[in-house]
C-alpha cells in the first residue's frame, strides 16, 4: 500500500553469514548486506546455544555513546564499499520484511539494529520470547521509571499523599455554595474566575501537606506508559497491557479514579494480561477503579436497608458526589432510596465480553445489575479503597441472565455472571475479533478470527494461546496485512521515538502532545476506549499534529526528548541511508523522489523529520 512500487520482496541482499537461506539475486552484493547490518563495535552477537535474552545487548544500546556506533558503521561501510560507489536503493530481504512487520505489530516498531538482532536470533524464536515476557529481563526500563515516585504507591498512599485533604474539599464545597448564592444572575463569568483563583489559593495553602499536586499522579502514569512503549524489551507485553487497558477502559478524570487507576493497571490488568480471560474479567470487576468508574459501587437494591440515605453509609456516598449538595427539603425526606445502577451491567456485556451484538437484552442488563448489587468499595472515605461485598445493598432475589437461572446467593451471583459471560461463545468471538483487529487488520479475515475464537474456547480463554494463534497465523504475513494498519497517535509517538533512538528524559511534553492529537492517556471518557481503526485517527488535524511532531522531534524541539544527530545519520548520508535507519523496509518510490528533489543535501536531522512524517511512517 504505502510503499509505492518497491521492486518486490524476493530480490535483494542476502542475509548475514550463518543464515541458511542466503538469497542470491542479480543485484545482491556485499554493499547491501553491510547497510542492513548493525553498526560494528556494538553488534549484538547472540550465542548459538540456548537463546539468551535479546535485551542484554539492546539495553546497553542506550548507555553506550552513539558516536562509537556511528564510527563503527562508517568503518564497515568503508571496508566493504568499492571505492566511489554509492549505495543504491534496493528492496529489503523477504525475511526482513517479515521481521519489520513483526516488530511493528508485536511491538511499537523497530529501533536501529532491532532488525539485525531479530534476524540473528530467528524470527520465530523472537516471537516465542515475546510471548513469554517473564523470561525477558527489563532492568533498563525499570531504571528509567524509578524517578516517577507515584508509580510505586498504591491507591491508599496516593490518596493520603496526593489528594487534597478532607478539610480542603469541605472548604471548597462550602465556598462554592457561598459563591453561587451570592452571585447575581449573569455574573457567572466572574464567578468562574473567582473560583479558579480560589482553587489556586487553596492549593498553595495545602501544598505543604501533600507530597505533590493531585495532577502529578496521572502525569506520571502517562509518562510511564510512554517510557514503557519506547524502552521496554517486553514489547508484546506492553502492547497487550495497552490492549486490555483499552478494552477494560477506565477514565482517570472521574473523581478518585485517578488515584486508583495505577493500582488497577498494576494489580488487576498486568498480572492477568496473559492468563485466563475469566480471571482478568473478575479482577477488573472487583477493582475499585472500575466499580467507581461505571458506578457499580452505588448500585443497590431499592428495597435493601442500607439503600436509604441514612447513617455513615449515606454520608460517605454524599461526599463522593453521589448525592451532591442537598437542598433543605430533600434532606427532610426520610428513607430516600438509592437504586439499581445499570451502567456496569450493560458495559460488562456490551464492551467487555459478548459485544453489542452478543445477544443480550435490556432485561438481561437489569438482571445482571441486580446480581452485582453489593459489589462496592469500602474505605474510600478513609483513603483505603478496596473491594467489598456489602450484603445490605444486595438484591437477594433469583435472577435470570441469558436464560440461566441464578439463585439468590450473595456475592456468588456476580461470580456466576462473570463465569457465564467469560465462557459464552460470543465472548470468545468478540475478544478474538478485537485482538485480531489490533494485531492483523482493521477488518481481520473471518477465518483467522474463527480460528482464534476456537482456540479461546478450546483453552478456556487462555489469552497467551489466543494471541499466539493470531500472530503465528499464515494471514499474519499476508501481503494484504503488511503495512495495512495506520498507527494510532500513541503508536506513532512511540515508534518515532524508537526509530530515532530518542533519549526521553521527561515524557511530559510527549504526553501533552498526545492529548492534543485526541489521545490523552488514561483519560478516555467513554467506556468504549480508544478506537482501533484507521478512520478514527486519520484526519487533517491528526495528520498535521503528526507532521509537526515529526519535525519538532527531529529538530530537538520537544522538551525532554533529545535526538542524537549522528544516530540519525552521519553527514552526507543519502536520504536512503537515513531512511533505512528509521524505516528498515525503505521508502516508497514517490517519497524517495520527493526527498531527492526537495531535500537533497539536507542534514540527516532534517531528513529524519521528513521521513518520520512520511505517509509510510504513519503505517505499521
Amino acid at each position, binding site marked *: 500500500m504505502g510503499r*509505492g512500487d518497491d521492486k518486490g520482496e524476493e530480490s535483494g541482499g542476502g542475509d548475514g553469514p550463518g543464515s541458511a537461506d542466503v538469497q542470491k539475486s542479480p543485484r545482491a552484493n556485499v554493499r547491501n548486506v553491510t547497510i542492513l547490518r548493525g553498526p560494528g563495535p556494538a553488534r549484538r552477537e547472540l550465542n548459538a546455544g540456548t537463546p539468551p535474552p535479546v535485551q542484554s545487548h539492546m539495553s546497553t544500546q542506550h548507555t553506550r555513546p552513539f558516536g562509537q556506533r556511528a564510527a563503527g558503521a562508517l568503518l564497515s561501510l568503508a571496508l566493504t564499499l568499492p571505492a566511489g560507489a554509492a549505495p543504491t536503493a534496493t528492496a529489503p530481504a523477504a525475511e526482513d520484511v517479515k521481521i519489520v512487520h513483526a516488530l511493528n505489530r508485536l511491538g511499537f516498531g523497530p529501533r536501529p539494529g532491532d532488525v539485525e538482532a531479530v534476524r540473528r536470533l530467528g524470527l520465530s524464536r523472537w516471537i516465542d520470547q515475546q510471548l513469554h515476557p517473564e523470561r525477558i529481563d527489563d532492568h533498563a526500563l525499570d531504571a528509567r521509571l524509578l524517578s516517577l515516585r507515584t508509580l510505586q504507591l498504591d491507591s491508599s498512599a496516593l490518596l493520603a499523599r496526593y489528594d487534597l485533604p478532607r478539610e480542603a474539599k469541605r472548604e471548597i464545597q462550602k465556598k462554592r455554595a457561598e459563591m*453561587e448564592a451570592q452571585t447575581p444572575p449573569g455574573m*457567572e*463569568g466572574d464567578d*468562574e474566575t473567582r473560583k479558579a483563583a480560589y482553587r489556586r489559593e487553596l492549593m498553595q495553602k495545602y501544598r505543604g501537606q501533600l507530597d505533590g499536586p493531585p495532577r502529578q499522579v496521572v502525569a506520571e502514569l502517562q509518562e510511564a506508559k510512554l517510557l514503557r512503549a519506547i524502552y521496554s524489551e517486553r514489547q508484546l507485553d506492553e502492547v497487550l497491557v495497552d490492549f486490555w487497558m483499552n478494552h477494560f477502559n477506565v477514565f482517570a478524570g472521574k473523581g478518585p479514579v485517578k488515584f486508583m487507576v495505577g493500582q488497577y493497571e498494576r494489580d488487576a490488568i498486568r498480572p492477568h494480561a496473559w492468563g485466563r480471560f475469566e480471571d482478568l474479567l473478575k479482577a477488573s470487576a472487583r477493582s475499585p477503579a472500575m466499580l467507581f468508574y461505571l*458506578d457499580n459501587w*452505588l448500585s*443497590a437494591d*431499592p428495597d435493601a436497608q442500607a439503600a436509604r440515605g441514612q447513617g455513615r453509609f449515606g454520608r460517605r456516598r454524599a461526599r463522593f*458526589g*453521589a*448525592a*451532591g*449538595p442537598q*437542598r433543605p427539603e*430533600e434532606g427532610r*425526606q426520610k428513607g*430516600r*432510596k*438509592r*437504586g*439499581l*445502577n*445499570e*451502567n456496569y451491567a*450493560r458495559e460488562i456485556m*456490551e464492551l467487555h465480553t459478548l459485544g*453489542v451484538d452478543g445477544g443480550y437484552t*435490556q432485561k438481561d442488563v437489569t438482571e445482571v445489575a441486580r446480581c452485582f448489587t453489593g459489589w462496592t468499595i469500602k474505605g474510600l472515605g478513609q483513603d483505603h479503597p478496596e473491594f467489598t461485598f456489602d450484603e445490605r445493598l444486595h438484591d437477594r432475589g433469583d435472577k435470570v441472565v441469558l436464560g440461566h437461572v441464578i439463585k439468590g446467593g450473595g456475592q456468588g451471583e456476580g461470580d456466576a455472571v462473570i463465569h457465564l459471560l467469560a465462557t459464552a461463545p460470543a465472548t470468545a468471538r468478540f475478544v478474538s475479533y478485537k485482538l485480531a483487529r489490533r494485531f492483523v487488520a482493521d*477488518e481481520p479475515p473471518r477465518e483467522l478470527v474463527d480460528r482464534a475464537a476456537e482456540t479461546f474456547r478450546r483453552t478456556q480463554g487462555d489469552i497467551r494461546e489466543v494471541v499466539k494463534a493470531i500472530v503465528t497465523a499464515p494471514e499474519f504475513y499476508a501481503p494484504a496485512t503488511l503495512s495495512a494498519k*495506520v498507527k494510532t497517535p500513541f503508536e506513532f509517538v512511540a515508534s518515532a521515538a524508537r526509530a530515532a533512538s530518542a533519549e526521553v528524559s521527561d515524557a511530559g511534553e510527549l504526553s501533552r502532545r498526545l492529548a*492534543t492529537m*485526541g489521545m490523552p492517556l488514561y483519560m478516555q471518557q*467513554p467506556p*468504549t476506549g480508544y478506537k482501533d481503526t484507521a*478512520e*478514527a485517527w*486519520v*484526519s*487533517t*488535524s*491528526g*495528520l*498535521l*499534529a503528526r*507532521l*509537526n511532531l515529526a*519535525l*519538532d522531534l527531529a529538530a530537538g524541539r520537544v522538551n525532554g526528548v533529545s535526538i542524537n544527530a549522528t544516530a540519525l545519520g552521519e553527514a552526507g548520508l543519502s536520504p536512503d541511508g537515513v531512511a533505512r535507519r528509521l524505516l528498515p523496509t525503505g521508502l*516508497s518510490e*514517490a*517519497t524517495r523522489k*520527493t*526527498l531527492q*528533489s*526537495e*531535500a537533497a543535501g539536507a542534514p540527516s536531522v532534517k531528513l529524519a523529520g*521528513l521521513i518520520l*512524517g512520511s*505517509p509510510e511512517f504513519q503505517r505499521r
Partner: protein
Amino acid sequence: MTSRRFFLKSSGLALVSFGMVPRVFARAAAAAQGAARKKTLVVAFQRGACDGLNTVIPYGESAYRSLRPTIAVPAPRGGGRDAALDLDGFFGLHPALEPLLPLWQQKSLAVVHAVGSPDATRSHFDAQDYMESGTPGVKSTDDGWMNRCLRTPDPAATPFRGVSMTPTLPRALAGGAPAVAMASLQQFGLRGGGDTVAARSFEDMYGAAVKDVVHGTGQETFEAIDFLKKADPMRYRPAAGVEYRGRYGDALKQVAQLIKADVGVELVFTEIGGWDHHAAEGGVQGQLANRLRELGDALGAFGRDLGDRMQDVVLVTMTEFGRTARENGNRGTDHGHASVSFVLGGGVRGGAVRGRWPGLAPGQLYEGRDLALTTDFRDLLGEVLVRHLGVRDLARVFPGYAAVPSRFPGVLPA
C-alpha cells in the same frame, strides 16, 4: 470500507463530480455568482445522552415531580434562578440556560421536544454511530449524513465546506467527500517558522497518486492550510461585549470566525461531552446544571457574536438518546430514549416548542420508562437541510428513510 477519498489531479471534471475544485475554478465561479451568502448548518452534538426532561422541563406535566422526587427542577416561581425559566406556560428552561432566554424571546430559538432516534438501542456507542451515520439500526453504513450532504456538487466549494472542530473527524463527516477536522484554528498549519522545504516535501509526498486514506487526508490538509492562510479567519474578533467561555465556547468562537471569514463553511460539526449523568445529575444544581451552563453560555455568545449573520446560520443541538423519566436513586438517570433539541438561527420560527409532546403518564412512556419519541431526528435535520441549505435529494442523505415535509416539526418557514 471504501477508500475514503481520491484526489484526481488530472481531470477538472472528475474533481467537480466529487465537489472539489481547484481554487482557480472556485474563485471564478464565486465571482460569476456574485456575493451569494453561504448558508451554514452547525451541529452541536451532546455526547453522553443529555437528559432532555431536565433541560426543557415539562413542569406542566403532573407526573414530572413524582418521577423525580429529588432532581426535578421546580416550576417557575417569579423568574427566580432556583426554578425553571418559563417558556410557554407548560415548558420551562433549566435556569443554567438563561443566556438562551433572550434568543427565545426574540423568536430566534425554537425547541423540539421528544425528538431522537427510533432505534431502541441504549448503547452510547451504537446510538451515536446511528445518529452520525444517519441510518439508525444499520451498522454497515460507511459514511456519515453530513458527508453525504457534501457529495452534492458545488462549483464554489472550498476545502472548508465540511468542517469539524475536533481533533479527529467524527463519523458524521466521514466518507468520500473531503472534510477538515481541526482542533483549533491556531494549530492548523505546519509550525517550524516558515520551513518551506518541509512544507513542500510533505505536500509532495502526500500528493502522490496513492489511493489510500493517509494520502487523501494529506492532500486535503495542504489545500486547507493554504486556503486558511489566505482567508485568515483569526483576524475576526468577537463582537463587542461578547465573551466566549469554556472549551465549547472556544469551539463556537472559532466557528464564528470561519463564518465571518467567508471560507465557505456549509456543514460544521461541534461536540460537547459529559452528559452521561448516572449519578449526581441533580436538579437546579448538579452535574447537568454545570454542563448546561457551559452550553448555554456558548450558544448565547455565538448568537450575539454573529448578530445579523445569524440569518444565514442554523445551529441544531442533538444527543444520542435521552434518559429515564424516573430518577434512579443515585440522584441521576439511566439511558433513555427521546430527548430535546434546540434550533437557533435568524430565520428560525422561534419562541415555540415544536413537535408533539407525548406526555409522562405511565402508559405514555416508552417501554414504561423513557420519554417516547414523536419526532425522528431525520425529520428535524431534513427540514433544516431542505429549507435552510436547499438540499434537494434528502433520500441520498438519509437512505432508507422518507423524510417528508408533512413530518417536519416546523422550525423553519416553508
